[in-house]
């Protein structure tokens, strides 16, 4: 799948949020390829591929500019992730205050890349992650509705 670079590559003043049409295009391309190549596989394995495609296309659309998308792409081992020097790459934060880490412990495990960042950054990443995840869910619902109608 052709990796679409996110909008405003390198330009800090542009909108960081991935566009919905971009996410839709990425996801539909994945679906189309799965449809062509997985005709004989089981429903379960195709479902896993679709699930993987959902997270991969979501992370591609967000690009490298977010810690969560970068962590997701690494986890999914997408080979097309360019080894770029990231100006905003999250550094492993030294444990600051024990109370601070504990209160977000569960959240850190839910947000990709959440374990290596400070509390403030975690909250920012969570907000962006939720926005993209909700958009991806709506997108999948739309596709499902239009196929089944």
């Amino acid at each position, binding site marked *: 799948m052709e990796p679409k670079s996110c909008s405003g590559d390198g330009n800090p003043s542009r909108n960081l949020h991935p566009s919905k049409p971009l996410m839709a295009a990425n996801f539909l391309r994945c*679906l189309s390829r799965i449809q062509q190549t997985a005709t004989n596989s089981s429903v379960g394995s195709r479902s896993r591929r679709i699930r993987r495609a959902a997270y991969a296309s979501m992370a591609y659309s967000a690009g490298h500019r977010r810690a969560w998308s970068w962590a997701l792409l690494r986890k999914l081992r997408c080979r097309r992730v360019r080894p770029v020097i990231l100006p905003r790459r999250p550094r492993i934060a030294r444990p600051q205050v024990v109370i601070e880490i504990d209160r977000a412990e569960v959240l850190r495990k*839910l947000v990709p890349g959440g374990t290596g960042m400070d509390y403030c950054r975690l909250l920012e990443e969570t907000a962006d992650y939720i926005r993209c995840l909700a958009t991806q869910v709506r997108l*999948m619902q739309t596709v499902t509705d239009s196929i089944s109608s």
Partner: protein
Amino acid sequence: MPIEMSSRRSRITDEEINELISKLQSLLPESRRRSTSRASASKLLKETCSYIRSLHREVDDLSDRLSDLMSTMDSNSPQAEIIRSILRS
């Protein structure tokens, strides 16, 4: 948050964090927002975690549904044509 901990952080950081917490609250769907309207930060974090988990479950469910639907599609069906036409536009 214990007093001795809060004195280590600057006021600006506290404000930033409160802002980020309210932003998170605004991202919760209406049904979840009501229970956290006057909640502590930790309650809001819990609700956020619960919301993220439910979104993950929706991705799983929708993947299953799409997989089911796709097994009934062949490459010449009208649904496949829908996908192709969306990709072309």
